[in-house]
């Protein structure tokens, strides 16, 4: 693919602007958060062009943002943030992505690396057995059509009511694990059929469940509020979304939006940016359907967290409470939310699209959960399976600058086939094992696609958002056990 040759104006060491004049039709400039070094790799593809294309969307306010983990997506770049005025703006399913409410949940434990290391194989096997994963994997919970309608509306609470987790989990889940406005009548029969058997499954691709060890604590006060107390402590990270259900919802509504674009006379540089006014029937229907898929994903992570706790409990012969397995937080990183933000000194209702971006609300914000009111909402940023993951918190700077948003992960740099070629038949499982990382995967070929060299270095990504001030790093953990679909 051709290198992107457009103009980037340096604002400071971590902010680069694509001026509105770059392309006729841009309503606002683009803003890319990156270091000079990262910018070089970002320019290797047409990703900045996608940042410019998003700036065409009606009602967009401020900037078309791109986080340092951006890579090429469909229509929107992955790592893109765009806020639209709900009065005259649009909502775009492409600004959310196919995997609606793909996200991350992090649990703490009171176990140390020394206690877990001798039992790691048994633990990984128990998790692999207890958490359905892989292509076409079907859930342990059998969901009827009626229950499907309930879980779409209730979100994570649906699972908690069935004994899968606790009320306390909901307190530390974005939106309490339930996005309001969900309307199952906006969901196709096809989506329901794809969703029913897959509820409570990890899936495949880049989704995973990881046992991690805390390696560095940058802010011990904030870390202790999260229950991260010391180096060597074991954490559990779950990364999954809404499976085939979300994909079908996106596919169905993209099709509707395709028609809406011409009806509303919207001019777009890319068909995948299809959208409709937020206040239109098409826009409202999509948001109501998207909320169903978001709630489905929260049910999914709620179930998986419960089975992860059960697996630990079985292997260590203690209850999950005795093992201190409390949830730290759960974030969505593919979602559109109606939020209030200060724009030019006025409080404005906007629709914030976060596609491969994480909400990063500051201390004191009404939607920051009680436990984190004084320190800011936790931001969970997983890296690839060979490197590390970060926990951060939201900041005032994010609120005033990026509509309360920050990065979501490492971001791919190599295509899946290029990643496989770079592995060139090497035994990736053994290589990771030699580095103290036990991996169990449904498919070894797909494991190669997820190798470290396929991703940006997460440390560089985090340093950019930390230095730019749109989130603040709290702790870093490395994997010791990985389950991949």
């Amino acid at each position, binding site marked *: 693919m051709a290198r992107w040759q457009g103009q980037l104006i340096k604002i400071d060491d971590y902010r680069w602007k694509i001026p509105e004049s770059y392309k006729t039709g841009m309503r606002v400039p683009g803003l890319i958060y990156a270091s000079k070094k990262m910018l070089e790799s970002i320019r290797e593809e047409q990703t900045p062009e996608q940042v410019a294309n998003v700036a065409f969307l009606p009602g967009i306010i401020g900037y078309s943002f791109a986080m340092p983990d951006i890579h*090429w997506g*469909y*229509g929107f770049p992955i790592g893109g943030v765009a806020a639209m005025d709900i009065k005259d703006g649009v909502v775009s399913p492409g600004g959310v992505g196919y*995997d609606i409410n793909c996200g991350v949940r992090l649990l703490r434990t009171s176990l140390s690396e020394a206690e877990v290391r001798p039992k790691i194989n048994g633990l990984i096997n128990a998790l692999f057995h207890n958490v359905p994963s892989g292509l076409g994997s079907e859930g342990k919970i059998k969901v009827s059509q009626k229950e499907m309608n309930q879980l779409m509306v209730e979100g994570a609470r649906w699972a908690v009511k069935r004994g899968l987790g606790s009320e306390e989990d909901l307190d530390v889940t974005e939106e309490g694990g339930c996005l309001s406005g969900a309307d199952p009548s906006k969901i196709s029969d096809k989506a329901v059929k794809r969703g029913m058997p897959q509820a409570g499954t990890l899936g495949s*691709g880049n989704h995973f469940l990881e046992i991690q060890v805390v390696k560095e604590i940058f802010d011990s006060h904030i870390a202790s509020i999260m229950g991260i107390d010391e180096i060597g402590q074991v954490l559990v990270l779950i990364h999954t979304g809404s499976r085939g259900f979300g994909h079908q919802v996106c596919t169905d509504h993209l099709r509707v939006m395709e028609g809406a674009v011409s009806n509303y006379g919207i001019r777009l540089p890319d068909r995948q940016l299809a959208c409709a006014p937020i206040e239109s029937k098409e826009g409202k229907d999509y948001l109501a359907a998207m909320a169903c898929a978001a709630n489905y994903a929260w049910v999914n992570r709620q179930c998986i967290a419960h089975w992860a706790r059960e697996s630990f409990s079985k292997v260590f012969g203690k209850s999950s409470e005795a093992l201190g397995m409390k949830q730290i937080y759960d974030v969505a990183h593919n979602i559109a939310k109606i939020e209030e933000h200060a724009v030019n000194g006025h409080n404005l209702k906007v629709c914030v699209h976060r596609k491969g971006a994480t909400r990063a609300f500051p201390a004191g914000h009404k939607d920051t959960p009680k436990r984190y009111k004084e320190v800011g909402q936790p931001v969970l940023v997983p890296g690839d399976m060979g490197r590390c993951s970060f926990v951060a918190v939201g900041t005032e700077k994010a609120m005033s600058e990026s509509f309360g948003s920050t990065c979501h992960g490492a971001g791919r740099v190599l295509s*899946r086939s290029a990643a496989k070629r770079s592995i060139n038949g090497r035994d990736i499982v053994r290589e990771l094992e030699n580095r103290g990382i036990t991996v169990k995967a449904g*498919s070894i070929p797909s494991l190669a696609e997820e190798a470290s060299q396929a991703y940006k270095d997460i440390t560089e990504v985090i340093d950019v958002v930390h230095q730019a001030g749109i989130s603040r790093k709290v702790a870093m953990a490395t994997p010791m056990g990985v389950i991949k679909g």
Partner: protein
Amino acid sequence: MEKAFEIIDHTADVGIIAYGVDVEELFSNAALALFSLITELESVDEKLHLDLEVSSEDRDSLLVEWLNELIYFFDVKHILFNRFDIESLTHNELKATCYGEDFDPMKHKIKMGVKAATYHMLRLDKTGGGYKAQIIFDI
């Protein structure tokens, strides 16, 4: 046609370019390309068939809808197809009979999970010798 399709690289995902002497062959080859991403086509036998009807706004989106319909049948019914008989095709409607068999984990190797055909970089062009289409899949 010398080749039915080829696979193209895309950072986060994967794409195909399908060829056909006519639009019917193009649609059939695009579907073959899709299932070649999912499994080894040679491992699939013709044990069942399914009649499908798909409609859309225009021919480009019909191609996307057609492939999404097949993805749906794989995801929900776990059917792998390796032959497509396009019976009728207008600019916005398609009728086809699809041949294949139920997915059997002992027999079929799954190469990747394809979750959706997208409109991203979608192209359907007339060429000197027929037709050519490009589709990017979300995986």
